[in-house]
C-alpha cells in the first residue's frame, strides 16, 4: 500500500428506517480523493488501472442528459420498502424471484428500492420508460461519471452488484424479462451487465488513458482480496455487521437453509464463480451498544478487557436482533434479548455474552452453508475491526472447530478492487499469482476440549434465538 485517502460522506435519516446518501457528494468526494491519491504517489509512480468496490444494494436513479439524480440514493440499510416487499411476496407468482434470482424477496436488495423510486418520484416511471432516466448501484453511478457522465458516460454494472438487485437471472447473468415484469421495472433504464474483472471504460475524468478495469460489491471484493479462489474457501468480515462468503466454484448452489447464493466474481471471458453468503446485521454494533447504550466500556477494544474479568458467560446469552435477524433465520420480527440472567451475572459475563453472540451467529451461518453446499470449511479467513479481539477470534475458532486466519493486509475490500483491476490489465498473470501475495498475520487454532464443550452448549444459544423470534411475534 503506497497511498491512502479517505473522506466521509453525509448520511441522511429523513424518517425512521430511511437512510439516504447524496450521489453528487459521493461523486465529488471520489474525484477529490482520487486526485489526492494520484498526487500522493511516491517517486512519480504510475497508475495502470482503477478498481472500484462499493456498498452493495444502494440504489440511484438519475437523468441521462443533466447527470442529476432524481432524488437521493436509497442506502442498503434503508427499510422503507418493508410493506412493498410483503405485498410483492404475497403474489401468487412470487416464487419466480427465488427461482430466477437465487434470492428470496427481501427489502435488503435493490430491486424493491428501484420500484419504490419509480412509484414515488413524480413522473419517474414515464420518464424511465422513455429512456430518460438511468438506474445504477453505486459502482454504476461512479463509472458513468468517471467515463464522461452526460458526455458519453458508460452505463454498466458489474455482475456481483447486478446479482443483488433480484432482477438478474443468476444462471445466465442477464436481466430477466419476467423479473422485470414482476417488479415493474422498464428495461431501458438498466445498465449493461459486465464481468467484475475486465476493462469497463476509461476514467477520462481523472486521467486521459486510465482504464477502469475492475468492479465488485464490497463483500465480494473482500473475498477476492482474501484470495478465496477455490471452492470451500471462505472469508468473514467483522465490522458493524458480519458478512461471511464462501466460494462455491462454477456451480450455483440451491439454498434451503437460510444462506443465499450470490455471484462471487467473473473474469472477462470466463464462467461466473458463485458464492454462498451469510449476512449478520449486528456484530460490532453490539459492542458499540455496550459502549454507547450502556456505558460499560469507554472504547470498543475494552470489551475484551471486561470479558476477561470472568472465565465464562455465567449462563448469560445476548441475541442482538435489534431490527430482526438476517441469515440464516430471516426473521424481521425478532427482537433482541438478554437470556439467563441471575444475580450471579456481572458486567464481565455480559461482555463475554456480547462477544460470544458474534461467534454463535458465525456458527449459525456456517452450519446453514454446510447444509446447503456440502462443502466443508477448511479454515475461515477473517478481516475487519473485530479481528484485533483475541478472545472473540479464539471463540470463533472453537465454535466452528476450524482454524481462523487473519491476513497481513487488513484492507481487504480495497485490495480486492485493486487485484481485480490489476489482473485485468496484466499486472498479475492469474489468480494463482494473487494467491502468492496473501500472507498469514495471525492464526487462532481450535482447542479440542473447548470445541466439544461449545458444541454441547450450542443448543442454549439456539434456544435464545427461538425466544427472540417468539418475543417479536405479533
Amino acid at each position, binding site marked *: 500500500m503506497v497511498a491512502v485517502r479517505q473522506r466521509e460522506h453525509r448520511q441522511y435519516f429523513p424518517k425512521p428506517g430511511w437512510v439516504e446518501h447524496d450521489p453528487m457528494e459521493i461523486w465529488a468526494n471520489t474525484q477529490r480523493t482520487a486526485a489526492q491519491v494520484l498526487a500522493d504517489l511516491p517517486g512519480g509512480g504510475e497508475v495502470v488501472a482503477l478498481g472500484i468496490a462499493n456498498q452493495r444494494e444502494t440504489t440511484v436513479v438519475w437523468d441521462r442528459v443533466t447527470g442529476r439524480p432524481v432524488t437521493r440514493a436509497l442506502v442498503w440499510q434503508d427499510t422503507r420498502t418493508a410493506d412493498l416487499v410483503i405485498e410483492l411476496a404475497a403474489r401468487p407468482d412470487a416464487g419466480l424471484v427465488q427461482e430466477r434470482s437465487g434470492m428470496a424477496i427481501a427489502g435488503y436488495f435493490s430491486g424493491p428500492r428501484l420500484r419504490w423510486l419509480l412509484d414515488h418520484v413524480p413522473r419517474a416511471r414515464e420518464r424511465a420508460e422513455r429512456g430518460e432516466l438511468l438506474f445504477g448501484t453505486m459502482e454504476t453511478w461512479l463509472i458513468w461519471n468517471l467515463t464522461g457522465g452526460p458526455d458519453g458516460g458508460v452505463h454498466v454494472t458489474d455482475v456481483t452488484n447486478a446479482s443483488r438487485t433480484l432482477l438478474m437471472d443468476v444462471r445466465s447473468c442477464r436481466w430477466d424479462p419476467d423479473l422485470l415484469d414482476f417488479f415493474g421495472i422498464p428495461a431501458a433504464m438498466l445498465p449493461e451487465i459486465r464481468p467484475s474483472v475486465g476493462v469497463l471504460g476509461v476514467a477520462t475524468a481523472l486521467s486521459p488513458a486510465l482504464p477502469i478495469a475492475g468492479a465488485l460489491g464490497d463483500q465480494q471484493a473482500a473475498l477476492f482480496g482474501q484470495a478465496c479462489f477455490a471452492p470451500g474457501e471462505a472469508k468473514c468480515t467483522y465490522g458493524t455487521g458480519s458478512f461471511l462468503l464462501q466460494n462455491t466454484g462454477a456451480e450455483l448452489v440451491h439454498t434451503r437453509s437460510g444462506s443465499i447464493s450470490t455471484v462471487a466474481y467473473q473474469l472477462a471471458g470466463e464462467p461466473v464463480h458463485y458464492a454462498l453468503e451469510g449476512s449478520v446485521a449486528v456484530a460490532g454494533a453490539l459492542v458499540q451498544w455496550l459502549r454507547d447504550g450502556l456505558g460499560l466500556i469507554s472504547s470498543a*477494544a475494552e470489551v475484551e478487557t471486561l470479558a476477561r474479568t470472568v472465565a465464562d458467560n455465567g449462563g448469560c446469552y445476548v441475541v442482538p436482533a435489534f431490527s430482526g435477524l438476517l441469515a440464516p433465520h430471516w426473521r424481521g420480527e425478532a427482537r433482541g434479548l438478554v437470556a439467563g440472567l441471575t444475580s450471579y451475572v456481572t458486567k464481565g459475563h455480559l461482555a463475554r455474552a456480547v462477544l460470544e453472540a458474534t461467534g454463535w451467529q458465525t456458527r449459525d451461518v456456517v452450519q446453514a452453508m454446510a447444509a446447503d453446499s456440502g462443502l466443508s470449511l477448511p479454515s475461515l479467513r477473517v478481516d475487519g*475491526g473485530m479481528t484485533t479481539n483475541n478472545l472473540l477470534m479464539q471463540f470463533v475458532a472453537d465454535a466452528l472447530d476450524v482454524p481462523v486466519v487473519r491476513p497481513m493486509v487488513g484492507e481487504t475490500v480495497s485490495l480486492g478492487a485493486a487485484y481485480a483491476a490489476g489482473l485485468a490489465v496484466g499486472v498479475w498473470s492469474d489468480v494463482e499469482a494473487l494467491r502468492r501475495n496473501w500472507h498469514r498475520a*495471525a492464526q487462532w487454532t481450535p482447542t479440542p476440549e473447548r470445541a466439544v464443550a461449545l458444541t454441547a452448549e450450542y443448543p442454549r444459544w439456539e434456544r435464545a434465538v427461538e425466544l427472540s423470534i417468539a418475543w417479536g411475534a405479533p
Partner: protein
Amino acid sequence: MSHGRRASARPPDALASVVVPGTVQSIERAAAILQVVAASGGTLGVTDIAEAVGLAKTTTHSLLRTLLHVGYVDQDRATGHYAVGAGILRLGSHLDVNELRARSSNWADALAARSGHAVRLATLAGEDEVVVVHHVFRPDDSVQVLEVGTALPARTTALGKVLLAHALGHRPPRAAADSWAGELAEVRARGWAVDRGEHHPGRGGIAAPVRGPGGMVAAALGVNGPLTSLVDGRGTPRGLLLGMVTDAASAVSRELGAGGA
C-alpha cells in the same frame, strides 16, 4: 500568592493530628502533599507545602524528592515550585492493552510486511517480565503460534530493555548495577534496544518505545528473528531495519496521541 489561595490548598484536616491506626504514615503524608501540589496549580515551593500539610520542612522535602524520583511531581528549575508530574497523569489515563493492540494493528502489520520479520508489541508486567500484547507472524506462511499473553524475560529481550529503561523507579540488581544501568541509560538516550542472542542463542530482537498520551512510554514495539538477519558482523542493528522499527513505533505513538514524542 494570596493568603486565601494558600488556605484553600490546605487539606480539610491538619495532617499531624490525624493518625489512623494501621495505616502507613509516609504514604498518607505523600498523598496529602500531592493534594496540595495538585490544588496549587504549580505555584508552591517546599516551605508553603510544608506549612499547608503541617509537617517539618525537612520531612516535606524528603517526601517531595521521592515523589520527584518516581515522576509523580515535577519541579520548576527556576522557581523551585512543584507541579503534578506525568506519572500521576498516566495513572488516570491508563492505556488498556486491548486498546493498544487495536490502535497499533495497522502499523504492526505494515512493519511485518516490510521487514519480513515477526512483530511483537509488549507491556511491562512487574520487574522481571514483559507480556506480549500483540503479535504479527513473520510473513512467510510457516507454522507459527500466536504469542499474545505470553510472558518474556524483561532483562534479556529488546522489548524488555526498552520498557525497563523507561520504567519509573526501576533499580538494577546490585551485582549488575553498573553495566546494566549504563545499558538502560544508552537505550533511553538513543531510543531503541537490541537483544543479541541474550534470550535465545542465535536469535535476537530490535525494539523501540511506544509513547501514550502525555508522552509516557506505554509499550515497546519490535521485530525478532535470526540474529544475523537483524545485526551486522559487529552486532550493530541493520540501518534500514532499525529505521522501520523506530518509524513504526513513532507512528503508533502518534496514533495514541503522544504529541511531539
